[in-house]
């Protein structure tokens, strides 16, 4: 079995962002970047299949600047076999352009499974995986929280509003991974050392025409600071009054 996992390098979300001077992007100075969490679960899912079946090859594909090599190496350190960087000077916002570039790479790769994270932490479009499925003409299952592969068939669980859905699909297929499927393994030093020697191919990304662009970015409005009304039971009437009149939630 051959599995491709498409991953994205995203900024760490625990920081306070600043808007860059050009006004339509975040200021990347001082930001820490790492693998998108959803994508790390996709890598883990692929590696778990590999752990069971020695014949499996796991290939990591990532689109971006040369900086993505660090992120690809992390996936290789976790245990993936080789990496492909689809090189661009920046990651475009247009999901379709990205999906085309990825599909061009994946099309003739002979993959039985193509895995994505459900969405990226930064742009949160959640479309690339689905578009790749469409472009490749393969069965697509999104937002998977449980996965089983046996032979050329797979079954999955999806979390849907108010319930759960169980689906079956033939391979090859494109899947996007939701939270809860697994916990991504922590790369051991042994893996980090081994990753340095694994092949990482760099190819130009075939992005094609981009139709959607970001024109402007703004920070959310500052939240009004909290207020302490008083302490203990005595403060309750005032609290209720304010919740009714000011916050209008009661």
């Amino acid at each position, binding site marked *: 079995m051959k599995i491709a996992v498409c991953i994205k390098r995203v900024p*760490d979300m*625990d*920081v306070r962002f600043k808007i860059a001077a050009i006004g339509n992007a975040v200021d990347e100075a*001082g930001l820490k970047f790492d693998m998108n969490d959803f994508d790390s679960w996709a890598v883990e899912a692929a590696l778990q299949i590999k752990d069971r079946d020695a014949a499996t090859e796991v290939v990591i594909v990532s689109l971006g600047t040369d900086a993505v090599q660090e992120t690809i190496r992390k996936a290789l350190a976790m245990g993936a076999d080789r990496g492909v960087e689809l090189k661009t000077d920046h990651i475009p916002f247009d999901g379709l352009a990205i999906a085309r570039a990825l599909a061009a790479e994946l099309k003739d790769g002979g993959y039985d499974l193509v895995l994505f994270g459900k969405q990226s932490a930064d742009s949160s479009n959640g479309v690339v995986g689905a578009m790749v499925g469409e472009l490749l003409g393969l069965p697509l299952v999104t937002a998977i929280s449980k996965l089983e592969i046996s032979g050329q068939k797979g079954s999955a669980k999806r979390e849907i509003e108010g319930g759960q859905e169980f689906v079956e699909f033939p391979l090859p297929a494109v899947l996007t991974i939701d939270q809860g499927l697994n916990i991504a393994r*922590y790369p*051991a*030093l042994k893996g*980090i050392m081994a990753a340095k020697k694994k092949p990482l191919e760099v190819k130009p990304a075939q992005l094609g025409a981009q139709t959607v662009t970001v024109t402007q970015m703004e920070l959310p409005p500052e939240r009004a600071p909290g207020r302490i009304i008083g302490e203990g039971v005595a403060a309750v009437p005032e609290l209720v009054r304010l919740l009714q009149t000011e916050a209008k939630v009661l």
Partner: protein
Amino acid sequence: MTIGRGVFIFVVVVTLAFFSYNAQRLVRYMRTVGRPDDRSDNPVTRIRNLILIGFGQTKILRDPVAGSLHALVFWGFVVLTIGTGEIIISGLFPGFSYAMILPGPIYALYTLSQELFALLVLAAVTVLLYRRIVVKPARLQGDKVHSGDAILILSMIGALMVSLLSLGAFEFALHPGSGTIFQPISLALSHALTGLPTWGLEAGRATSWWFHALLILIFLNYLPYSKHLHVLTSLPNTYLSNTSGPGVKGAMSYMDLEAEGVEHFGASDVTQLGWKNLLDSYSCTECGRCTAACPAHITGKLLSPRKIMINTRQRLMELAPLATGDFGEFEHPQLSAGEGGDAGDATATAALQNTLLDNYITEEELWACTSCRACVQECPVSIDQLDIINELRRSLVLMESRFPPEIQPAFESMERNGSPWAFNPGDRGKWAEGMDIPTMAEMIERGERPEVLFWVGCMGSFDDRAKKIAVAFARVLQAAHVRFAILGQEEKCNGDPARRMGNEYLYQMLARDNIETLDRYGVETIVTNCPHCFHQIGNEYPQLGGNYEVIHHSTYIEKLLEENRLPLNGEGKQLTVAYHDSCYLGRYNDVYEAPRETLRRSLPMMTLVEPPRTRSKALCCGAGGGRMWMEETVGKRINAERTEELLATGADVLAVACPFCMTMIGDGVKGQDSDVPVYDISEVVAQQLL
């Protein structure tokens, strides 16, 4: 040549040959199986350790009762070995006596010392046997220790003493008038024998002599089969120890992550441990002092540092004969026995497949360790149990990513945010807002240089309770007009949690970043309120090329108080305060007085009270060794145990000098529904500022 002499020469040659064979085997095991480890540094400190800990028995005397008895036996052995020489030589060259080579008075002194020590050792051995057989102290139980072995050895020693004295007694009875007052005991005994016929006396003398001489040779040959191997190894072991002096106490060993050809990081088996770890395992007397002091063990966890040592020896005894081509030769049963071994399956294949990790020592034991160093502190023969625990943890993390799942977020956060908690690194300096504390960058830009850098640490930067400690210490520095700066955003976790949890790779990443920052600003002197930062930067960064003078705030404030640089508010209240020693301040760095002196000087009316376990015997709060980030589900909580002890002193206030201790003891106090406040020593001082 008499037949007797011929027989004796034969016996001596055979027993010494057999002993040498066994001794060289044990040395070969240790050196073939263990990794190289250079212990030739710091000869002066090593000799001092040998004299104080080895010959002076200072560590064994930490247990006053058993310690004094043992010290007596030890000193007796040293003295009586000289006499053993005389007896053996006289067997080879009949008629030989030291009297022939020693001046009269010295010979008299020598005979007196032999007699007195023989009696003292006999008495001590009797009490020790009583203890083993009747009293059975708790620390001598568990881990499948060999009580029978100890009883055998003690009995042999007793028999040696009896035969030594009876030898003299028969001699003097045979030749009345030959004894002097410098052999008072034999002389007194000889009077009881006067009625016996000469042949009886001669037979008595011959029996005593042969019994004594043969027993010595048997004893010597039994040692390599017994946990009492320490009789031979403890002195060299003490000289070669790293932990009680040479190098920097408690620093984890340097690890070259880029080294060519290294395939295994850390240790999962004895082959990856250093030869000194293996010598440690030979030297363990199974006395259980380490385990009795271990906070994990005390509170019911699986960990026992004694078992770590016994297991290391067992595994060595299982593997080494194969590794050195000795398989099938004489086993060393006592050295191979103990709890946790691979039960019974002694085939060569099984022995090769086993590893120290998993087959003998489980992950659960390893993760229970708080790295408090109580075991190392207590071990009378200067064994470093913690070194083995650390190496095994390194292997778990670096080779297999095997660790309690709850510490993964801490690892990831240290890597991404430079702190074990997912806080925004941009907020690191937030606690200091409005206090007019410059960052290093700001100060340098103004063209100034600080006297000291205040290293705040992740707790002081992000933890709500510990932020108050950072504020208090900053106020103290300001009150003394110390020109200081902080690094603010540029500070990162010192890496201690990663290192202690076995993640050397992450540790070196953080440490190198910090060293780069500190060197960029040319920082020379650092003060910090966190003992972990203090120990790590001061004692372990030099391994990576970071050399700074690092001062813990307790020492720094004490100096400010001594120099009268702090305007204090009168006498303070009449309080009783119990101070809790931090492991990384106390046992790791011998800072015991500074925090106490700081309390005394800032609260002259205060009475300091001490819990029973205090100073170098203090019980850990439970946070070290990365335990801060792990769940504690087995047994009693360590912080609860420690807090109970502290509260039992009846103190009005508990004082700490470590932000981690603050969390643990603070939680402990809340858990006891007590309202006794817990303060950092800097807070106590800050409250007294005018």
